[in-house]
């Protein structure tokens, strides 16, 4: 039986979208960064165990989502640059410097971008929690919290409401504790997994403090 369809020109795209959501929150002396662990393309799931957070140093973790090919290459390039820095300066890159380095790397590909949504979380030179968020071509800013990736639009307003206490008049602002941050992150990922097809399977949470990086894994809906 012949396929009676009009001829359609398909333009080959060098990019693909592999899904994934990342989220980071900065506290007074800690930072929390989490990502889901699903890797997909269209309606297919490639694997349920592909976290999108990568440890850069004892004080910084980078979350990257978007096109997995570019994520892997970007991580390779950053790690190579970090190696050079460590050999030259005999110390690790600080979080602020790592952020600027990433912005430079991303902008160097301004006219054929890395299709990645990046969030860097860690402790700054003074030991305070910091979160830097980037666009695919390297525009970046330091913030207290940021959601990125496929379910970013679902998570960001809830963080506005619960972390920055927006639209809540007369509520006492208490400093954010690690436990509160982790339970908030777990809750938002559970909500995102309900409504976003690309988010699910599991969430990997990295808690960065002066004493090191603690990792928690929580399962999510697998549908």
């Amino acid at each position, binding site marked *: 039986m012949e396929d009676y369809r009009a001829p359609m020109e398909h333009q080959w795209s060098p990019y693909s979208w592999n899904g994934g959501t990342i989220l980071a929150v900065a506290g007074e002396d800690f930072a929390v960064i989490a990502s889901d662990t699903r890797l997909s393309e269209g309606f297919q799931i490639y694997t349920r165990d592909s976290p999108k957070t990568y440890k850069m140093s004892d004080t910084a973790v980078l979350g990257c989502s978007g096109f997995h090919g570019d994520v892997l290459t970007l991580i390779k390039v950053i790690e190579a640059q970090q190696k050079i820095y460590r050999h030259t300066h005999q110390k690790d890159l600080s979080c602020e410097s790592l952020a600027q380095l990433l912005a430079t790397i991303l902008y160097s590909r301004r006219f054929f971008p890395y299709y990645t949504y990046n969030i860097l979380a860690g402790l700054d030179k003074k030991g305070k929690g910091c979160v830097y968020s980037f666009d695919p071509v390297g525009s970046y800013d330091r913030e207290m919290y940021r959601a990125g990736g496929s*379910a970013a639009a679902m998570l960001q*307003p*809830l963080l506005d409401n619960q972390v920055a206490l*927006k*639209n809540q008049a007369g509520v006492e602002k208490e400093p954010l504790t690690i436990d509160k941050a982790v339970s908030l992150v777990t809750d938002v990922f559970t909500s995102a997994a309900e*409504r976003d097809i690309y988010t699910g399977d599991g969430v990997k949470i990295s808690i960065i403090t002066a004493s090191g990086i603690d990792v928690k894994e929580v399962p999510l809906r697998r549908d």
Partner: protein
Amino acid sequence: MSNIFEYNGSAVVAMVGKECVAIAADRRLGMQAQTVTTDFKKIYEMNNKLYVGFYGLATDAQTVSNRLKFQLNLYQLRENRLIKPKAFMHMVSNLLYSRRFGYYFIEPVIAGLDPKTNDPYIATMDLIGCPMETKDFVVAGTCSEQLYGMCESLWKPDLEPDDLFETISQALMNAVDRDAVSGWGAVVQVIEKDQITTRTLKSRMD
């Protein structure tokens, strides 16, 4: 002019509580980037226990609400009783499907109580009338993803009317604050069996 649904900008949400429903919408009317008015009505009363809000093109929302009221008035005259929310949902669905190939650029959000039993009811549908009834909440808007995120986290079953008001208000206000074409205030209606409370909220005016 890429997406006609995003031309005027809007956000509507409805939630079910304990023996009550709530429906809320933002108040902005714009022409793409230009804000035209900040008191635009998006929720229409069909009868004292049935409300419908519209997301999408403002002119179509007004036309459809007028046509719907017209059909509903005839129904009420013929049947001599208030319409059940589920029957009303079918009326809206039929109206939209009658324009299957020349559709209205809107998505309705229906919220009401059954006239006899006072059971809460909420529903939404797509632009050609495919209905979706849920037990928790329904959302429609240029910021629908944001609304889904907020409602999914904040809603819980059997909220009392005052708690339902707080929940739906926070869900709407924080979602529209992350959307450029909706916001500029909000209207929230909480419908209980013997009273309707309408509150106007002041939010970020941008």
